């Protein structure tokens, strides 16, 4: 599948340029002093907030969908020339030939929270267009005026990585000519208090792979990609990036703790590599799920270590130190990062590390897996990124890995 367009809004900003600049310069979007913190006086943590979301106006015809999650979706669809790219394909193929599949963990549940907090009148509240799990899919289909198959995947933090396999299936079956995939998750109190109750929220800035990592920072993000099996027009000067493989698996281990040896993670990575018809030695960079909880990072690095060999030089890093854990949007956020890293040829630093966890480096000692603590700019070296992989793992032991390739290196 070819990537014909993408759009991303996170706490780092709202277009490619600001994201690239932040990733290159090591500038985080996380903060412990945001407007949202007022709503969680009992929780001391860093958040990745998209500012002024509540001011985003939806068009009159879609007003009933108004909630933080759909506001972020709307903003993301407007940015990065995404709408016009979708419109071009709608004009070319017809509405019913464009599919839409999006991931979210909590949809617009914040609207229901507002009712219970007396911040929203019950008669101004509509469950179906806000909290209902497919509200995001309904909203985006109507906003883009597409009429192919459409639904929301909600498998916690792997939601918006699994959308890629659905797009593959639809395109292969020739029931659509293009697919909008994506994911949006926005800050809400149930999630913040829920993760806090599990003891997984860090009071410090999150430190993936660090010896002293002690939990996640929650962020919000919206991301969309336009995919098709037809290559982008030849006049375009942009490098051609393809989705080469998607792999999914289950841990079958525990409802909220990952398998200690990353068994499920390995199965997902292997399935993605099998579909891409490559091996670990071909992967140049892995964007880790890397949430900064003690158990996730140990599980994931164990999984990576099991698959790597001395013959597989691979950079791995987590970008959660930039955006926080954007949960149901983590997959699409990091897969768009992977696309942009291929286009711009750099490896982002694994941010906020003081001391890499020796338990993790011990696992990697027989392989040539490297964790960059500074950005690596590859354009002036003879190294390059061709194949990159993104990992996303969620509660319920739900795993997905996606491999991207730069065609014209």
């Amino acid at each position: 599948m070819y990537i014909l367009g993408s759009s991303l809004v996170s706490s780092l900003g709202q277009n490619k340029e600001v994201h690239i600049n932040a990733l290159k310069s090591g500038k985080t979007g996380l903060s412990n002093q945001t407007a949202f913190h007022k709503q969680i006086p009992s929780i001391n943590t860093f958040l990745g907030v998209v500012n002024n979301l509540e001011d985003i106006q939806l068009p009159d015809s879609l007003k009933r969908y108004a909630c933080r999650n759909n506001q972020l979706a709307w903003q993301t669809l407007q940015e990065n020339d995404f709408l016009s790219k979708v419109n071009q394909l709608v004009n070319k193929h017809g509405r019913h030939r464009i599919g839409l599949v999006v991931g979210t963990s909590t949809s617009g549940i914040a609207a229901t929270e507002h009712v219970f907090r007396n911040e929203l009148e019950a008669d101004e509240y509509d469950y179906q267009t806000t909290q209902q799990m497919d509200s995001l899919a309904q909203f985006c289909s109507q906003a883009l005026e597409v009429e192919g198959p459409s639904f929301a995947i909600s498998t916690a933090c792997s939601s918006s990585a699994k959308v890629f396999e659905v797009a593959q299936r639809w395109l292969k079956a020739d029931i659509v000519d293009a697919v909008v995939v994506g994911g949006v998750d926005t800050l809400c109190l149930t999630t913040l208090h829920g993760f806090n109750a599990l003891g997984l929220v860090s009071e410090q800035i999150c430190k993936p792979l660090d010896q002293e990592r002690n939990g996640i920072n929650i962020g919000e993000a919206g991301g969309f990609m336009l995919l098709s099996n037809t290559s982008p027009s030849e006049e375009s000067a942009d490098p051609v990036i393809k989705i080469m493989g998607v792999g999914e698996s289950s841990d079958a281990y525990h409802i909220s703790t990952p398998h200690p040896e990353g068994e499920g993670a390995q199965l997902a990575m292997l399935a993605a590599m099998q579909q891409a018809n490559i091996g670990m030695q071909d992967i140049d960079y892995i964007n880790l799920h890397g949430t900064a909880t003690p158990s996730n990072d140990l599980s994931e690095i164990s999984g990576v270590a099991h698959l790597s060999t001395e013959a597989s030089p691979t950079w791995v890093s987590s970008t959660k130190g930039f955006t926080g854990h954007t949960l149901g949007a983590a997959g699409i956020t990091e897969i768009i990062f992977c696309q942009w890293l291929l286009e711009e040829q750099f490896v982002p630093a694994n941010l906020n590390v003081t001391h890499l966890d020796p338990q993790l480096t011990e696992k990697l000692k027989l392989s040539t897996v490297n964790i960059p603590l500074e950005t690596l700019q590859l354009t002036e070296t003879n190294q390059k990124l061709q194949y990159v992989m993104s990992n996303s793992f969620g509660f319920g032991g739900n795993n997905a890995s996606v491999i991207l390739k730069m065609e014209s290196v």
Partner: protein
Amino acid sequence: MKAQILSIGLTAPGLVNFENFKSMMLQNQSPDTSEAIEKYSPTFLPPNERRRTTATIKLALKTAEEALSHFQQRYPQADNKLPVLFVSKDGDTLISARMCQEVGEEEPMISPTQFHNSVHNAPAGYWMIGQKNQSPASAISVGQYAIANGLLEATLQSQTYAKPVLMVIYDLPLDDLIPKDDSQNAAIPFAFSMILDASDSNQESDYPALNLSFTQQAPAPTSSNNPYSGLPAAEAYPLLQSMVLFESNGEDSEIHFPLNRNNFIKIALT
């Protein structure tokens, strides 16, 4: 595209399982929708996980287990670690509504179990743990378009994985705490499951195959005799009825399910 049904499960008030439904239909009886759903415990789960399951999770697991048990009896040699697809409009609003109520309190206290049970893929997670199954597991929501999109997705998954796929579509009424209008109040829980095979295995079956095709035209809906009408999962009732008729006297039928606002999937039993 074609998908062979290899197994079916069914749970609703007044309907214990698909066999029970079949015999009622053949005897022209109507289910008593005012009965409670029969008690069920997911004994395939370790005790710790079992006691954490909620009514919503149990409804999904019971219906999944019925289809898998029948499948294992009918095809004892077959691989029973199937990919799964759980389809539900709302997931567990009993939990999500309580969590929303709790965050309205001065010092919110959410239980860790409540929180991890609140994810839409909780039934999928428990199912895979209990079945020691590391296959892909998905959980989706398609609002009122559950049947068409669920059957389509399960069929395409079966083609992708080249093996049968277990699909469960389940819905329960919205929790009382959630503000809603009257149309959302009258709903009755309903769940059904199918093991669908769209690989090229040509497996023999006790059930018909589904032929799925896309159309922008559908006959105007006739007046419904569906006693469960209300939630998206229950829209499968006429499909399940026609399956019984097909089995008993080979009666052909075509049913249309909406895929979205302007498109339909036509399902023909063969």
